C-alpha cells in the first residue's frame, strides 16, 4: 500500500471533516452576538431564547472543531514531517500566532459564554460573546494566511533547502490572501445563514410559530440574501487573482487544454487526462474568455502548457461546478424566502420544505470550493517550493491504512450523531415554543438581569 496516496486521502478526510465546524463557528459567534445585542437593546426574551438554542449548536460545533483541529496539528508530524522541515520557519510562527492569539481566548471565554449567564454581569457575558466571536475570526485569519502562502508564496528566500523569512508582512499578506480570507469568511456566513434558516424552517414545518423561531428564521434568510451576491462578486475577484498567480489551476477549473483566444465556457464535460480532451462537452462559445478576460478574444491558459505539472483535471473541474451550482441555488432560495418574509410576512410550505435540505448547502459549497483550490494546487504542497510527494513521512502504508479506516468510520458516525442532534434540538425547541415557561433558573436570571441593567 502506497503511504503517499493513503496519507493524502487521510489528510483530505481529516481536513474535510475539520473544516465543517470552523465553517459554522466563525460566523455563528457573530450571529450569537447579534442575538445578544438585540436582547440588550430590546429586553425581549425571545432574543435570549434564540441565543440559548443556538449557543448549544455553537458549543457542539466548537467541540468538534477543537478535537479535529488537535488531530490536524499532530498529523503534520505523523504523516508530513517534510512539510515543517522545509517551510517550518514560516508555517511555524503563523500556527503559533493562531494558538496564542485566538485559541486560548475562545477556549477560556467559551465557558463563560455557555454557562456563565448567571455568574457574571450581563455586560461581561456580552463581552465574552464578543471575545469568542473575535477569537474564531482571528483564528481563521492566521490559518488562511498560511494556506494562502502555500498557494502563492512570497516574502522568503531558500537557504540550504529551507525557507527563511525576508519580510513577514509579505508572507502574511501574500498575493492571494485578502481574496481567500474574504471568500472564506463569506462562505462561513452563508453556511451559518442556511443552517439557521433551514433548521428554523424545520421548526416552522413542525408547527412552531414562536417569536424566537421567527427571529431566527428572519436572521438566517436575510443574512443569506444579503451575503450571496457579495459572495458571487468576491468569488469572481478571487478567480481573477487565481488566473494571475495560478494559471494552471484556472486551466483545470475550466478544463481548457489549449492556450488561446475564444475559449468556450464548458458547462458539462468528462475531462479525459490520458487523451487530453473533454468527452460529452457542452459549452457556451467564447464564454470562458468573456468571464476571465472580459473579451471574446481574451487568451485563457491551457493545460497543455504545463505538462506533468498541472493538477488532476476531473476533481478540480467538478468541484468548481458543484460550488457555483450550489451558490446559484442559494441565491434563488434565499431571495424567494426573503421576498415572502418581507412582503407577505409568511413562508409557503413548499419553500420551507426546500429550505430543510438546504440546511447543509453551505457545507456542500465550502467543501467543493475547498477541493477546487486545494486539489488545484497539486502536485505542489507549497507552490514551486515543495511537492506533496516530498513531504510524506517514513510511516508504513499498513499503519496509514489502518488509521485511515478507523478515522473514516469515526467521522461518519460522528457526522450522523451531530446532524441528528441538530434535528433533535430543533424539534425540541419547536415543541417547547414560547408557550412553555423558560426554565426556572433562566427565568430568575432574566428578571435579575432586567432589574440589574
Amino acid at each position, binding site marked *: 500500500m502506497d503511504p503517499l496516496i493513503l496519507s493524502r486521502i487521510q489528510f483530505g478526510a481529516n481536513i474535510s471533516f475539520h473544516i465543517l465546524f470552523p465553517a459554522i463557528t466563525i460566523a455563528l459567534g457573530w450571529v450569537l452576538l447579534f442575538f445578544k445585542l438585540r436582547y440588550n437593546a430590546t429586553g425581549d426574551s425571545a432574543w435570549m431564547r434564540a441565543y*440559548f438554542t443556538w449557543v*448549544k449548536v455553537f*458549543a*457542539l460545533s466548537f*467541540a*468538534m472543531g*477543537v*478535537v479535529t*483541529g*488537535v*488531530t490536524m*496539528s*499532530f498529523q*503534520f*508530524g*505523523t504523516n508530513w*514531517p517534510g512539510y*515543517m*522541515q522545509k517551510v*517550518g*520557519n514560516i*508555517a*511555524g*510562527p503563523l*500556527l*503559533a*500566532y493562531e*494558538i*496564542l*492569539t485566538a*485559541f*486560548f*481566548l475562545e*477556549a*477560556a*471565554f*467559551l*465557558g*463563560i459564554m*455557555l*454557562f*456563565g*449567564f448567571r*455568574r457574571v454581569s450581563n455586560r461581561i457575558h456580552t463581552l465574552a460573546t464578543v471575545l469568542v466571536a473575535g477569537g474564531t475570526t482571528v483564528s481563521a485569519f492566521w490559518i488562511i494566511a498560511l494556506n494562502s502562502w502555500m498557494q502563492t508564496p512570497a516574502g522568503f528566500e531558500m537557504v540550504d533547502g*529551507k525557507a*527563511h*523569512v525576508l519580510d513577514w508582512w509579505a508572507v502574511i499578506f501574500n498575493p492571494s490572501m485578502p481574496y481567500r480570507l474574504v471568500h472564506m469568511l463569506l462562505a462561513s456566513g452563508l453556511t451559518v445563514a442556511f443552517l439557521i434558516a433551514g433548521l428554523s424552517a424545520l421548526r416552522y414545518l413542525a408547527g412552531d410559530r414562536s417569536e424566537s423561531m421567527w427571529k431566527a428564521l428572519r436572521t438566517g434568510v436575510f443574512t443569506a440574501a444579503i451575503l450571496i451576491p457579495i459572495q458571487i462578486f468576491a468569488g469572481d475577484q478571487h478567480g481573477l487573482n487565481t488566473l494571475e498567480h495560478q494559471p494552471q489551476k484556472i486551466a483545470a477549473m475550466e478544463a481548457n487544454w489549449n492556450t488561446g483566444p475564444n475559449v468556450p465556457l464548458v458547462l458539462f464535460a468528462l475531462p479525459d487526462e490520458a487523451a487530453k480532451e473533454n468527452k460529452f462537452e457542452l459549452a457556451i462559445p467564447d464564454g470562458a474568455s468573456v468571464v476571465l478576460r472580459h473579451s471574446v478574444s481574451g487568451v485563457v491558459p491551457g493545460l497543455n502548457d504545463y505538462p506533468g505539472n498541472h493538477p488532476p483535471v476531473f476533481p478540480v473541474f467538478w468541484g468548481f461546478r458543484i460550488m457555483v451550482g450550489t451558490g446559484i441555488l442559494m441565491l434563488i432560495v434565499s431571495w424567494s424566502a426573503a421576498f415572502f418574509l418581507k412582503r407577505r410576512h409568511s413562508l409557503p410550505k413548499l419553500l420551507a420544505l426546500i429550505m430543510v435540505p438546504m440546511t447543509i448547502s453551505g457545507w456542500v459549497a465550502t467543501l467543493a470550493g475547498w477541493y477546487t483550490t486545494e486539489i488545484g494546487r497539486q502536485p505542489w504542497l507549497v507552490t514551486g517550493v515543495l511537492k506533496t510527494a516530498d513531504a510524506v*513521512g*517514513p*510511516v508504513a502504508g499498513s*499503519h496509514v491504512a489502518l*488509521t485511515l479506516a*478507523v478515522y473514516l468510520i*469515526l467521522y461518519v458516525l460522528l457526522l450522523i*450523531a451531530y446532524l441528528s*442532534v441538530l434535528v*433533535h*434540538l430543533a424539534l425540541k425547541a419547536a415543541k417547547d415554543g414560547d408557550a412553555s415557561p423558560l*426554565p426556572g433558573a*433562566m427565568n430568575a436570571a432574566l428578571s435579575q438581569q432586567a432589574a440589574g441593567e
Partner: protein
Amino acid sequence: MTFDWPTALPLIFAGLMGLAILIYVILDGFDLGIGILFAAGDDAEQDTMIAAIGPFWDANETWLVLAVGLLLVAFPMAHGTILTALYIPVFLLLVGLILRGVAFDFRAKVPAGKKQRWNRIFFLGSATASLAQGYMLGVYVLGLDVGFGGMAFGALVALCLSAAYAAMGSAWLIYKTEGGLQRKAVRWLRTTLVLTALGMVAVSLATPFASPRIFDKWFLWPEILYLSPLPIVSALLFLWLWRQTFHLPRPDDRHALRPFLTLAAIFALGFAGLAWSFYPYVVPDKLTIWQAASAPESLAFILVGTVVVLPIIIFYSFYAYRVFGGKATDLTYD
C-alpha cells in the same frame, strides 16, 4: 556557552514548551481523570462530575495544543521524528481525545435514552487518551525504544499515568463536591495514589538505567547532593498526601483544595526530574534543542507574541477559574 540570541532562543522555547506540558498534565490530568472515574459513579454523580469540569476542559486541552504547537513551530525536526516513531499511540491519543471531547457535549443534548451510550464513550475516550499518553511517555523515556522492552515498559507507565490522572481527578472532586461523592473521591484518591507512586518510582529508576549519559547526570558527586532533594521531597509529599486522605473531609470543608495542590507539586517535581535528565536533548540522545530548532528570526517573531500574550492568557484563565469557583452546581446553558 556564549549567550547570544541563536543560543538563547531555543533554550527559552524549550522552557516554554516544558511549562506548557506541565500545565497541560496538571489541568487536563484532572479532567481526564474524572473521565476515568466516570465508570465508578452513578447517574446523579456523573452529572456532578461533569459539572465539576464543564467550564474548564476546553481551556485545559488548549495547553496540549500549545505544547504540540511549540514542538511543531520551535523544533520542527524533533516534531517529525517523535511523532512518526509514535504513530500508533498518537493515533490512539487523538481518537481518545475526539471521543471524549464530543461525548462531553453530546451526552447533555441527546434524548434521555441515549445519554448512557455517550457516558460510556466519555469513559472510553478519557481512558484511551490517558493510556496513550502514558505509553508515549514510557517509550520516550527509553529513548523512543519501540522494541519489546520499550513496549512493555510503555504499558506499565500507561497504567500508572492513568492512575495518576485518576488521582488528580479524585483530588479535584474533593475540592469541587460535597457529601457522598466527596467521601467516595477520598477513597478513590487513596487507591490511585499507590499506583501513581509506583509509576513515579518506575520512571525514576528506568530513566538513568536506560542511558549512561543520564545515569552520570544523576549519580556523580557532587550532582547527587544537589539533586537529592527532588526524590526526597517527592516522597515526603506522597506521605503527607496519604495522611491527608484519612482526615478528609474536614469540618467546614477546610483544606479541600490541599490534596490537589500537593499532587500538582508532586507532578511538578517529577517533571523537573525528567527535564533535568533529558536536557539538552529533545529527542533523547539523538537531537539537541539547538539541532532541532527553527531559524532564530522565526523564533524571535514568535517570542514577541508570546511575551505579550502569555501573561494575558494566564490572567484570563485565572479569571475563568474564579468565575466558576466554589462547589460544582448543575451545569445549564444559562
